[in-house]
């Protein structure tokens, strides 16, 4: 198995554990153009989900926090985004329990993870092709 590569423009610590490059490519059948399309959609929607969670916490709306965090977690999981999924999972659990008193640090963690994830995915999507398909198992 090829050693996991990260976009060369990013410091390694930013991308470490942030996305699962092999899993992503496997899921799109190595089709880089398709990956770019999906990343584009995700990067458009990500700030909206974070904003919904933040607004939900501000309004004490546990249901809004739960559903927005759930959707973010499901979408981010497709990119193997472990840290963002974990942070969203914590917020989802807090939303489900309706006790939002400890959600502050979880939101900070999610915002940091989302920022790193966005940067990593943007770098991944802008990588040059060398062909339109890449074998995920190569």
């Amino acid at each position, binding site marked *: 198995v090829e050693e996991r590569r990260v976009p060369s423009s990013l410091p390694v610590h930013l991308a470490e554990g942030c996305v699962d490059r092999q*899993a992503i490519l*496997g*899921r*799109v059948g190595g089709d880089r153009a*398709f990956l770019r*399309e*999906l990343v584009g*959609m*995700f990067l458009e*929607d990500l700030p909206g989900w974070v904003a919904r969670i933040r607004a939900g916490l501000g309004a004490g709306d546990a249901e809004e926090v*739960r*559903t927005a965090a*759930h*959707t973010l*977690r*499901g*979408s981010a*999981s*497709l990119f*193997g985004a472990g840290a963002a*999924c974990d942070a969203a*999972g914590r917020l989802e659990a807090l939303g489900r329990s309706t006790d939002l008193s400890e959600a502050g640090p979880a939101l900070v963690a999610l915002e940091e993870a989302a920022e790193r994830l966005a940067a990593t995915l943007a770098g991944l999507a802008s990588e040059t092709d060398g062909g339109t398909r890449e074998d995920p198992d190569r």
Partner: protein
Amino acid sequence: VKILIAEDDRVSRRMLETVLVEWGYEVVSVSDGLAAWQALVRPDGPELALLDWVMPGIDGSEVCRRVRAGGGERPAYLILLTVKGSREDVVEGLRAGADDYITKPFDLGELEARLQVGRRVLALQRNLALRVAELEEALGDVKRLRGLLPICMYCKKIRDGGSYWEQVEAYLAAHSEATFTHGICPDCYDTIVRPELAAHQAASSGASEP
């Protein structure tokens, strides 16, 4: 095969659409629970569905509950989409009427295999429905020959409906799958045919005498 994707996250939806079209499915996509339910209850609606758990409007489990409550002749095969680590959701979804579930992030091999299971179940259901229809038709034939039949004490004709009397074999031929071949039983041969033959012979020998 027609399949419904109900998913509010457009990244997941787009990924599923692309994969399923590649696998030869006819894909119907919606982004909320109400639209999913409406698509499933249409007479020509999809029989296979991938339903996200959390959606605007009504959630995936409520869609399952409504579809099951509606009954219908073609029960759809419903697969819930959940996110890893949502065990309670899975249990609730299955109780609500889902047939199976698959966890995000999707493993394409697993997704394909679970869809195959769904198609197998749908085929079994279809075959079973076909056999039940055949049996019901056969039962209908049997029922037509049950009950009280008015029959003539002397000539044994059967009254069919109003004042129309018909031969028992004509009646049975019209009301069952039976057909008749004609012969003579030994009793009738002794009591009817033999005396007739004797009378015929006597008549012809009498006629030949001068």
